[in-house]
């Protein structure tokens, strides 16, 4: 048994003249939450479809849970769950019947279906409304039910395409906790696509950034953030002026400095002490009220990568 949940080598998929996935090589270990980040149309959904064996690759190869996507896609789908772009629920059926259907599809016994359905619906706060037709539900409730469906048969790998879309902040946080616990306690691998960088930062053990089908970066969020350069310093106060700005820009440890709305933002080259810079400002008559020093966020990393590729 391989320790990798997903392994792709030069995976490529073309649609006529458009290359949706471009020579993508990726290794995702089992039991982690992997975040796939990229702008709209970057190839994230195509990648999920390729990994589920719903699309044939144009070139390259991929294995999911040790099965080849080209020749063993049935075995892959047996052991995975997927929440795709659309929630994919039968709106004329009740929530209970939706889960019952998918339980039958994955050949769960009657008692397993009943127990698992009750367990998931209770956990997601939907149990009381289990007999209502799904068409009468809100977007967020449908999203929760679709997530329940994905987890119903206890798959080893879950694909989630924008799972927190439509969820309120409390439900989104609860889902993040669930996914974290699934990965940590049950060894389930989660492959999720998201635009929400803070979500990826909190949840993912590994992230990949894709643009125009190309994998630009892959690594732990902390590693990517450290690669993105030194810390950012935000200084709030009074008395900032152009002379000071020019002076700061000339300092060797400052890679960028800008003023906006009475704040001063500095991008440092490396882990430098900010105190000498503050002293310099004070000596030039600036009244400093607050100094905040942060590492580059995943969002900064993402935006930097997008800029570099333009």
């Amino acid at each position, binding site marked *: 048994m391989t320790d990798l949940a997903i392994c792709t080598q030069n995976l490529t998929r073309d649609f006529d003249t458009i290359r949706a996935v471009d020579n993508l090589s990726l290794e995702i270990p089992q039991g982690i939450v992997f975040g796939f980040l990229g702008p709209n149309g970057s190839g994230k959904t195509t990648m999920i479809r390729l990994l589920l064996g*719903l699309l044939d690759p144009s070139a390259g190869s991929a294995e999911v849970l040790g099965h080849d996507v080209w020749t063993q896609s049935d075995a892959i789908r047996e052991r995975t769950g*997927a929440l795709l772009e659309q*929630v*994919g629920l039968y709106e004329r059926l009740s929530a209970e019947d939706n889960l019952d*259907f998918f339980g039958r*599809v994955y050949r769960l016994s009657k008692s397993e279906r009943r127990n698992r359905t009750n367990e998931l619906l209770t956990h997601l706060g939907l149990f009381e409304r289990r007999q209502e*037709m799904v068409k009468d539900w809100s977007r967020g409730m449908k999203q929760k039910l679709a997530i329940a469906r994905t987890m119903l048969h206890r798959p080893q790998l879950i694909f989630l395409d924008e799972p927190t879309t439509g969820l309120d902040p409390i439900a989104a946080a609860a889902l993040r906790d669930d996914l974290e616990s699934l990965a940590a306690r049950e060894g389930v691998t989660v492959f999720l696509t998201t635009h929400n960088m803070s979500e990826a930062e909190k949840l993912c053990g590994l992230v990949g950034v894709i643009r125009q089908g190309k994998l630009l970066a892959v690594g732990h969020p902390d590693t990517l953030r450290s690669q993105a350069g030194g810390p950012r310093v935000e200084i709030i106060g009074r008395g900032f002026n152009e002379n000071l700005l020019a002076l700061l820009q000339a300092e060797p440890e400052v890679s960028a400095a800008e003023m906006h709305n009475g704040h001063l933002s500095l991008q440092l080259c490396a882990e430098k002490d900010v105190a000498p810079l503050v002293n310099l400002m004070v000596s030039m008559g600036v009244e400093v009220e607050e100094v905040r020093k942060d590492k580059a966020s995943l969002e900064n990393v993402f935006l930097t990568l997008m800029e570099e590729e333009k």
Partner: protein
Amino acid sequence: MIADIRTIIWKEWKDVLIQSGGRAKWYPLAFLAIFGLFLPLQTGIAWVETPVSLGFYALIPVMLVVTWVADSFAGERERGTLETLLATCLSDRSILFGKIAAVAGYAWVMALAAFLSGTVAVNIAHWRGQLVLYKPSIALGIVGLSFLTATLGANAGVLVSLRAPTVRQAQQTLGLAVFIIAWIPILGLNIIPQAWKAVLGEWLKGGDMGSIVPIIVAALLALDLVLLGVAMTRFQRTRLILD
């Protein structure tokens, strides 16, 4: 695979017939009232004693199939459930056969229900002191032909629905196909030479059901198998996702 086909049938029947709400629940009853009571009673005892109802019961399933089968794949596509269904572990054949069986099974069961209720209704209304039943060959013909026409309609309908982007478009295509198929014999009879018509008339008049029905059955069976083969070839997950 049988269990998977049953699962698809369960979902289809529940989705379309049981929980679709409103008028859909009354369609089967309305159908039975018309084709299982009204028409047999109008025709009288000849409904059972002569082969008049044979062709009728062969056509009923096609009418029923057309109303539903357009939804089979185009409906899933339109409602955004197709990709999720394809992303499950169900095999291509389970999904395809399940969809066909759900529609054909419904149409066949309804045709048989109409056949039974028609027999009972005619006997009650025209009681002769004993049960009047179909000749075994006719009864067998009704059961067999209605099955074959149900599967024929389902196969053809699924084939159209597989590629149609919307249910409406699938319905339009199917409607047109049924219209053309219905007009071919009429048009054919109008354009063939008079002598051929005479030969055909003699053959139909002289030929007993025992010789005509097997020919029709064989033709329907062959057509059924061809359409099923084409549907199996055209069922490709990649194509269905991208269409």
